[in-house]
């Protein structure tokens, strides 16, 4: 058994002797022992479908509830009536239905949709950044990516580059540039040779946040008062739905980014082993890093340009979802995306209904939920952050 140990009585403990591999990888290997060896230990397509299916149903139900709630409550029957008449293009003569239709189609529907979309993007970016930085506290807001994007947008607004070209606003692009600069600076500040200490990453984010906030406040203070008021409201994080063509353009932009991110799910899994092991498994980590950084900045930039600084969704949601369904990014990313969308949609409905007739910026609600959660992780779950 151990030639180098000679004829000695080997103290080697009796290990379960494995069946010797005799199959090539091109023939299907007959399973030894039970048919499913990792029952419950790994993610299966069936489990994926069940969880994603039920989350989609929940999202749909809550979307309907969010559409019903507001200054004026809309009954389910009326809601379905208005939606179907809009869908099948049947004009009505009923005045009451017409008003409801305007409220529903021009105000609530785009806003609920935008809330969902923004939540989806923030949670997805959170998942991707956490995996890439191997840091469960990473989040576009905490890392200063959001404030970088906000600075880009603020500069654009200051110099009046906020014009639209074919329904494509240039603001998301400015946000993208700002967010990318922030992300690269954080990475360069925190990375020492092949290592990304969690606390350096957070510290770099804090520093960047301070600098960018100061610059944003400077820009706000030299604007005319009425513009600076709008700027402040936007910065606090509020969803103001754009018109349908702009919303459609934004959706295309965001969905393209999400698609690119979703193609990286298995790579995100393996990056959790560390960069060198990932490279030794055949992954081009430099390319993966570039794609994830670019897409994260792209999504954050676009989201910030329409909704301002909505914080902590990218941190809370992936964390909570991971606790429940496990760490496999093939499920974690899409499930977090759905839960993030649901969370922001509901939070925004709370923001616009709790204090009628005034409205609270939704960023305040997410920050009030996320800040304490962050403290909880940092203080009581230290063991998880090593």
């Amino acid at each position, binding site marked *: *058994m*151990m*030639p*180098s*140990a*000679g004829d*000695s009585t080997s103290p*080697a*403990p009796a*290990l*379960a*002797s*494995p*069946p*010797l*591999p*005799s*199959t*090539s*990888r091109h023939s*299907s*290997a*007959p*399973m*030894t*022992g039970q048919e*499913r*060896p*990792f029952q419950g*230990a*790994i993610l*299966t397509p069936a489990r994926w479908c069940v969880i994603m299916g039920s989350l989609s149903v929940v999202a749909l139900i809550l979307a309907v509830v969010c559409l019903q709630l507001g200054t004026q409550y809309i009954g389910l029957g009326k809601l379905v009536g208005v939606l179907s008449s809009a869908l099948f293009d049947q004009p009505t003569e009923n005045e009451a239905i017409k008003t409801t239709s305007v409220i529903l189609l021009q105000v609530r529907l785009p806003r609920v949709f935008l809330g969902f979309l923004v939540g989806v993007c923030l949670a997805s970016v959170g998942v991707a950044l*956490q*995996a890439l930085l*191997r*840091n*469960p506290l990473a989040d576009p807001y905490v890392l200063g990516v959001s404030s970088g994007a906000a600075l880009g947008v603020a500069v654009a607004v200051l110099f009046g580059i906020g014009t639209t070209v074919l329904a494509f606003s240039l603001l998301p692009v400015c946000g993208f540039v700002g967010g990318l600069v922030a992300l690269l600076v954080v990475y360069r500040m925190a990375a020492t*040779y092949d290592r990304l200490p969690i606390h350096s990453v957070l510290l770099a984010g804090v520093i960047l946040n301070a600098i960018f906030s100061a610059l944003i406040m400077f820009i706000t203070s030299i604007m005319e008062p009425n513009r600076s008021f709008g700027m402040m409201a936007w910065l606090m994080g509020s969803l103001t739905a754009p018109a349908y063509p702009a919303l459609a353009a934004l959706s295309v932009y965001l969905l393209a980014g999400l698609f690119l991110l*979703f*193609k*990286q*799910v*298995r790579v995100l*899994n*393996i990056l*959790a*082993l*560390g960069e*060198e*092991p990932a*490279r*030794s*498994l*055949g*992954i081009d980590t430099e390319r993966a890093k570039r794609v994830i950084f670019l897409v994260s900045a792209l999504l954050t930039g676009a989201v910030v340009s329409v909704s301002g600084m909505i914080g902590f969704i990218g941190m809370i949601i992936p964390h909570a979802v991971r606790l429940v369904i*496990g*760490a496999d990014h*093939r499920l974690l990313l899409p499930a977090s995306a759905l839960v993030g969308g649901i969370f922001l949609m509901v939070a925004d409905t709370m923001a616009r209904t709790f204090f009628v007739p005034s409205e609270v910026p939704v960023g305040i609600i997410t920050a009030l939920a996320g800040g304490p959660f962050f403290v909880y992780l940092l203080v009581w779950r230290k063991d998880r*952050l*090593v």
Partner: protein
Amino acid sequence: MRLPVDPMCTADAYSDRHHAYDVQGASFCYGKLPVRESRWVLSDVSLHVEAGEILGIVGPNGSGKTSLVKLLAKLAVPQRGRLSLFGRNLSDLSREEAARTVAFVPQESPTAFSFTVAETVLMGRYPHRRQSRWSLGFGWEDREDCAAAARAMATMDIGHLASRAVTDLSGGERQRAMIARALAQTPRVLLLDEPTAFLDLQHQLEICSVLRRLTDEQGLTVVIVSHDLNLASQYCDRIVMLKDGAMYSMGTPAEVLSVEALRAVYGCEVLIDPHPESGLPRITLPRQAGPFRG
């Protein structure tokens, strides 16, 4: 009995003609080419690794052990010299081709997320995934992947930990999970950087005897970087000793581990006597350090 391997080196006649590795005049430094000769991390290292042997790489701190194993793992590229893997130039191989033949286990593995042990081991199947335009990067593991992972876990005796989170494992269990992840790659060559560094005696012994068994029974080639000269002496077929980035000696444990060599390389006096069971050199530290000869 052979491990299932990439067609690249399945033909026994082909692989038998070649060493697992041939390293000729490899010099390496981090970053740009150094201005001074002393900045080389590795300079002019030439060695070979025979197929089916355990090769130990030993040397003092900073002698370039880890850098050498990174060159072998294709994680770093030497500025000078050439490396070949089973007769093929390592730099000609794609990352994935290399990953199907060579598996690498680092000294420490980050555990930021609560992947289960089974999920972690299955990550080793990544280089064997089937490319499909429509899989959207999901790449679900098939029965063959699960079978390879189950074999690897049985070999490392962690089958019972399949659904535990890697974050909840002890150091020894985690290290065995990481080696199982590498074995699930069904490699021809296994590279380990300090595999026993944080393990207690029992786990050190277990891992070493499993590696010995894999080389003897399945023809696996193993390269171990180790600080533990005694483990290297008992379990390695041959040992490479590095000093200041250059190769000091290469040979069987009995040839390499001598009082004179250790004095020259480590700068300290040690006692060497034959191991009571194997007769291989056993290194013991003296009670009092002699005059420093670094």
